[in-house]
Structures are given as structure tokens and as C-alpha cells.
């Protein structure tokens, strides 16, 4: 089975029981199979939360970095959020294509997945931690800095409608309210590390065709300016003054992630203070801050506070405007009754709106491709057919 593990982990937080479910190649290899499987696995397990990877996630197809989180909503539809950075790939390399989380744990804690093993680790004191402290604690306890952590914060614990999940310290993916699906299960975080391997149909052909495709894209897109390549607001002098380095998600030749330092010299390349700044790729939130007349330094500090709290910055900025400047975690929590849920799907720069229509967005996520990158380069899956066929052994 190419680019797949062929199995899902199903964990019941109520009992701690773990079982595996085999997944057939037919079920896994369709163009929309990942979203369809997420939805059906959720329904089969009483409305479970599902984390999964796309068909091409982890391949050499450009920007094949995306995983996904699915949670049923009250309308019977599903909330879907991409998982970006290295997290989607590491999830797939953990040994499972999907992780199905059902039930409610009697104690707070986190799910730890690696090497084909999934276990719930009770850690009630996590409820006293913000999302950054949870991420740091898991990495220290499990002894690996590259563990990927999707954490909720106090807003998720409180099942707040404006809660958001935080991936490796950062907010950036679109879906608002999803962290409450963690909160209602007393699930503070899901952590995973990818130590597995993925087979491809024709390794030499996959390498050669993917290099060619990547070079075509680079020629088309030109040099990357990080976030400014996707959002003109990041070209402002006040943002450039605090910009540190650009970092990409897995396999991305044209990254959208610019780190900004506000607590030390942005030009410092060696290790310095423990929390020097923030990784900006949440375009709608940064735009909302700029539109409110907030400069890059204050906007970055607001993002840091919101990320620790696990709350949507747009919801905060809509309610508080410039009064959000300088607020810490405790102050944000004290104002939580003012925050509503924002629909980010149509906002400029969102992942959801990065491709031409909702079907293309769903195809990107199901295939494990970054909608923002593919929206920029032009989402035409036939252009990647050689790279895809050499990876999975057939055409889509």
C-alpha cells in the first residue's frame, strides 16, 4: 500500500481502550477518501474527533504537508481544519492514517501517538497550563524536541465558541470552536512523532518528476518573501523591522511563515530568550490587527497571548480593538464573555478561501496538499500527475 499505513487507531478516552481498524487500499486511495473516511470513522464511533492525513501527505509532491482534524458539529456536518507545518507528515509517520478519539476521559491529559502506539497520558495539572506550557511539557516529558503537539488552551478547556487549537505554539489554521471538541473530552493535547516509513510505487520516478514539478513552480512563483508573498500587509516596514527568518511547512518551496521577534533583536540568529516572538501565518488575524490600527509589534504580542490562551485573535480584536494591546492570558480570560465566534472561511488569506471554491479546498485537504500554496501556484492536479502516479502507482 503506497503512502499509507492501512490502519486507524481508535481510542476510547472513557475506558482507555485502544483498538486498531484495518483500512483497505480501495478505501484509502480515492481523491476525496481522506475526508470521507474521517467523516465515516467519526460517525461509526459516536461522533468521534478524528485526526488524519491526506493521500499524498509526506510525499515529494510540492507542499504535500497537510493533515486534517475533523469534528462533527451540531448541524450534523463536520468542522474540518488542516494541520500544517510538520505535523501532518509526522502524524502519518506515527504509524496510523487516522486517529479516532471517542468518549470523555475521567481525568485531563494528552494523547501520545508514536511508532504504531497510542496511549492517553493522564496529567490533570495540564488544566493549569496554557497551550505553550502544554507543548513544552510534553516535549520535555517524552524527551524529544520534534514531537508535534496540537494543544488546546484555557478557552478550549472552557468549551468557548471562539476557542482555537494551537499547533506547535502557533495559531494559523482556520477553524474556530474546534478546541472545544478537546475540552469536552478533557483532552488537553494530542502529541505525535513520526518514526515510520512510507512506501512509494517508483522511488526514482517520484523523485525525478517531483523535482521537475517543483522547479516549474519555483520558476512561476519567483523568490519567496515569506508571509509577504501571500499577504501584502507583511511588506510594511513595521513588519519587516521585526521579521526574523522564514520557515516552511514540509515540502513547501514557497513558504508563507514569517517569524517576528518582539522580545529580542530580530537579527539575532543564535539562541536567546525562551519566548522571542511568534510565527505569523494567520493572515486573517494579522490583517484584522492592522485594520484596527495596531502595529506589528503589538499585533505580534496579541497573537502570542491569544495563542497561549487558545482563542481566536479575530474574535478578540472584534470585541476589544486596540484595548487588546498588552492583555495577558488572565485578562483575556476575564473578557471571554465578550468574544463571539467568527466565520473565517471567507476572510482574505484564510486557508479555506485560498483556492477557488469549497470543492477544491476539500480536494486539497483530502489529498494532503496545502490549499494556500496550491491556490497561489494554481490548483491543477493534472499538472502533478507524473509525481502522483509515481508515488501511488496509479492516476487519480
Amino acid at each position, binding site marked *: 500500500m503506497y*503512502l499509507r499505513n492501512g490502519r486507524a487507531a481508535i481510542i476510547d478516552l472513557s475506558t482507555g481502550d485502544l483498538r486498531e481498524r484495518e483500512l483497505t487500499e480501495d478505501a484509502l486511495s480515492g481523491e476525496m477518501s481522506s475526508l470521507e473516511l474521517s467523516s465515516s470513522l467519526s460517525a461509526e464511533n459516536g461522533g468521534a474527533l478524528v485526526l488524519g492525513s491526506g493521500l499524498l501527505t*509526506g*510525499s*515529494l509532491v510540492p507542499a504535500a504537508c497537510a493533515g486534517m482534524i475533523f469534528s462533527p458539529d451540531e448541524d450534523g456536518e463536520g468542522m474540518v481544519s488542516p494541520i500544517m*507545518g*510538520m505535523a501532518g*507528515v509526522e502524524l502519518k*509517520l506515527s504509524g496510523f492514517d487516522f486517529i479516532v478519539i471517542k468518549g470523555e476521559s475521567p481525568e485531563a491529559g494528552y494523547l501520545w501517538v*508514536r*511508532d504504531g502506539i497510542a496511549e492517553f497520558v493522564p496529567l490533570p495539572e495540564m488544566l493549569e497550563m496554557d497551550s*505553550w506550557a502544554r*507543548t*513544552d511539557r510534553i516535549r520535555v516529558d*517524552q*524527551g*524529544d*524536541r*520534534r*514531537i508535534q503537539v496540537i494543544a488546546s488552551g484555557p478557552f478550549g478547556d472552557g468549551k468557548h465558541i471562539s476557542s482555537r487549537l494551537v499547533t*506547535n*505554539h502557533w495559531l494559523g489554521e482556520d477553524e474556530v470552536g474546534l478546541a472545544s471538541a478537546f475540552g469536552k473530552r478533557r483532552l488537553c493535547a494530542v502529541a505525535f*512523532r*513520526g*518514526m*515510520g*516509513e*512510507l*512506501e*512509494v510505487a517508483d*522511488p526514482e520516478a*517520484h*523523485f525525478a518528476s*517531483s*523535482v521537475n514539478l*517543483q522547479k516549474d513552480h*519555483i520558476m512561476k512563483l519567483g523568490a*519567496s518573501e515569506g508571509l509577504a508573498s501571500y499577504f501584502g500587509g507583511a511588506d510594511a516596514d513595521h513588519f519587516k523591522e521585526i521579521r*526574523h*527568518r*522564514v*520557515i*516552511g511547512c*514540509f*515540502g*513547501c*518551496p*514557497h*513558504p508563507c511563515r514569517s*517569524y517576528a*521577534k518582539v522580545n529580542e533583536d530580530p537579527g539575532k*540568529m*543564535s*539562541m*536567546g*530568550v*525562551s*519566548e*522571542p*516572538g511568534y*510565527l505569523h501565518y494567520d493572515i486573517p488575524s494579522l490583517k484584522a490587527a492592522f485594520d484596527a490600527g495596531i502595529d506589528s509589534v503589538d499585533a505580534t504580542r496579541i497573537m502570542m497571548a491569544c495563542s497561549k490562551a487558545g482563542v481566536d485573535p479575530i474574535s478578540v480584536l472584534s470585541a476589544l480593538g486596540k484595548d487588546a494591546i498588552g492583555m495577558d492570558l488572565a485578562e483575556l480570560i476575564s473578557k471571554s464573555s465578550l468574544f463571539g465566534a467568527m466565520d473565517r472561511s471567507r476572510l482574505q488569506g484564510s486557508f479555506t478561501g485560498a483556492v477557488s471554491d469549497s470543492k477544491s479546498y476539500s480536494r486539497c485537504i483530502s489529498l494532503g496538499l496545502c490549499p494556500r500554496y496550491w491556490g497561489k501556484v494554481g490548483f491543477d492536479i493534472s499538472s502533478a500527475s507524473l509525481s502522483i502516479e509515481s508515488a501511488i502507482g496509479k492516476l487519480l
Partner: protein
Amino acid sequence: MRLNLESLRCVGCGLCESVCSLNRDSVLTAMSSSIILHIEDKVNYFGLVLKTKDDGLVVARPEGSSPGEQHPGSDGPGAKPILLREPCDLCGGEPKCAKMCPTGCITVVD
């Protein structure tokens, strides 16, 4: 021939790890590559560590590269330390990591 690493050009995409493993074991994984990405994501500190035959480990930090340095690599008890991995064989003369690197961080020099 050897690989030259310009750390500040690195965007941390991880393709070098994947293509190294693909060349070595015909699978995509970050566990058998001769080159690994070192990331401290909270502080945006990242670079590469390459295991070579002649120079030992080449540590490409953002502050500058240092050949021959001892380095445990970016890993924990569950991961495979770079010292236990095979050294780079330059893919038999056409290093794939250099070909795939989208930013020119990894180049081939004589």
C-alpha cells in the same frame, strides 16, 4: 566533491531528510537519512546536521557551520540519533538533497 550547507537559506522544509531516505532505503522517512533538520520551533532556531565520511558531523547552525563537531542531533530517545546512521555517500555522485532543496541551501562543491 562535497555538500555545502548555507544554513540561513534553509526554510526547514525537510525535503532533504526525505529524499536521502528515499535514495538509501526506497521509502519516505526521516529516520534513516544522513542529514537531519534541527528545529527549536518556539524560538525559530533551525539548521541542518550532516553526517559525512571525511569530516564527521557538519553542523550547519544559523550562526555558521562547523565541521567535525560532536552533536547528538535533533532527536530524543525514540528517534534514531545521527551518530548511529550511515554517513552521506553523495548518492553515488549526484546528491539528491541538493537537487531537491528549493532554496539553494544545500549545494554541491568540488
